[in-house]
């Protein structure tokens, strides 16, 4: 989760953009819901407040799609990208959002098929980039290779790259 925010920021740096990435401050507990944030802009900005009205919300854990917290501060212009096996319409209905705001991709399934485990974090990055085009897809992939290459090994890195590409293509096909 925090890694995904880190990857997105790293990709922004590659694209010579200005960025911030920060976790929800405080102790992290395995399994507990966690939140991480990014600010990305092509121009310098100076803002150190917390993010309360996001432009884009990404929900990686589908079990959180009913939670009140995931729609807090989400305005009419905001984009909502969810990992879910459902269609966008019922998800939007459940969250009280406009169907046009909500994009859904089954990142968990893609992760299982590519990485072999239900770790949809990197896969979701493909979805985010696919919809927002905030950074080029190649920069995300390059950043992933550099940041995680050593830790994951070439086989798993390839799986992750494949996951990112597939969610990118899947979400853009809609």
């Amino acid at each position: 989760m925090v890694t995904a925010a880190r990857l997105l920021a790293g990709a922004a740096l590659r694209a010579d953009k200005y960025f911030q990435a920060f976790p929800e401050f405080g102790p992290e507990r395995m399994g507990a819901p966690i939140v991480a944030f990014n600010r990305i802009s092509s121009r310098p900005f100076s803002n150190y407040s917390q993010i309360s009205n996001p432009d884009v919300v990404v929900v990686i854990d589908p079990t959180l799609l009913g939670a009140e917290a995931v729609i807090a501060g989400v305005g009419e212009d905001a984009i909502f990208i969810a990992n879910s096996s459902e269609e966008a319409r019922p998800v939007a209905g459940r969250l009280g959002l406009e169907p046009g705001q909500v994009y859904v991709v089954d990142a968990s399934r893609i992760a299982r098929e590519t990485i072999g485990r239900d770790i949809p974090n990197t896969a979701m990055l493909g979805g985010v980039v696919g919809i927002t085009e905030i950074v080029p897809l190649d920069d995300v992939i390059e950043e992933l290779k550099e940041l995680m290459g050593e830790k994951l090994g070439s086989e798993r890195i390839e799986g992750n790259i494949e996951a990112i590409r597939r969610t990118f293509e899947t979400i853009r096909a809609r």
Partner: protein
Amino acid sequence: MSHRGRRTGSGARVLRAPAPAKGTIVKALRGADAVAEAMRQVNPGVVAAYPITPQTDVVERFSEFVADGEVGTEFVTVESEHSAMSACIGAAAAGCRVMTATSANGLALMWEMLYIAASYRAPIVMAVANRALSGPINIHCDHSDSMGARDSGWIQIYSSTVEEVYDNVIQAVRIGESKDVRLPVMVMFDGFIISHLLERVRVLPDKKVQSFIGPPRPVYSLLDIDHPLTYGPLDLFDYYFEHKRQQVDAMEYAEKAITDVGKEYGQVSGRLYGYYEAHELDDAEVAVVALGSTASTIKGLIPEIRDERIKGGLLKVRLFRPFPTRDVVRRLSATKAVAVLDRSASFGADGGPLYLEVSNALGRAGAKTKVTNYIYGLGGRDISHEHIMRVYQDLTRMARGRLKPGTRYLGVRE
């Protein structure tokens, strides 16, 4: 984000510093990484530190550099912050260049050693991730830790972006070791808000940093066996007062050293540092005084404030010790109303520590400016754009006599 220097007037652009140093690399670093990176480049003789959230990542990262042989530092692991500072003092007395880092309760545990470091005139550099002091238990940002140490005799520099904390750590080495200064320096950065925030940092080449700081030049060294000396003798009423008077004097020298070092760093890095930062103050009717990350947030909001037809400016305090009293008077006495934002409370006092300084400076200078105080963000409570806009709106009312100055609390539940 990377804007630096002083805006010359309403809408004026940032004064451009000299071109960035060749070989500068833009990296994505968190505040804690940036401190560790600066420490790696400084390559101090001794680091003694004890981990504490949110500073932990600094020493963790730095100890990796030690383990990987990227620095020649003697890393002293200790059992408490009290021992960390004690070891630092000993190493500094031996003539070493010494660095450490801590936060909140760790800083509190160092307390008695802070005074000893300053009174021994040991130019130790310590990064402080600002965090609330318990209790009740809180690990998030406020400035009550370092504000409590404001009279310990340390130079105190507040950083308001990740890049600034990197720059300040490097400059602190030079400032503290300056000839007539010889004082320890605390470099503050907001816990989590800066320490765990990933941002762009323009990292200087290692060689540039080394040539900027130069080799350590201790005045005295306990290891200089040809000139044996004693640290820490009994001073009592005969000499203690004189030694404290010397420390006051050292702070006066520090003012010049900080300005000189900031300028020189500008030549080296392309990033000029002044004693403080002024934003849109030249024609300002009202102004806010703030430090830390909040000052950066306000800076980013000033265009919006100007759009609201509020002639608002910002004075960002970089040095809290020594305090820029003359600059405060010079830049603010023409304004009608000033709000001072404090991220710590001084219980039983007439306002927060920053407010007391500003209010005293303007009051003693006979300025007619109304000065008001806002306590905010205690224990990591967020300060939002709405809060800041409200402060400027309050100030315009105050300037017209429709609101009385006083101490107010931003974001507390009534």
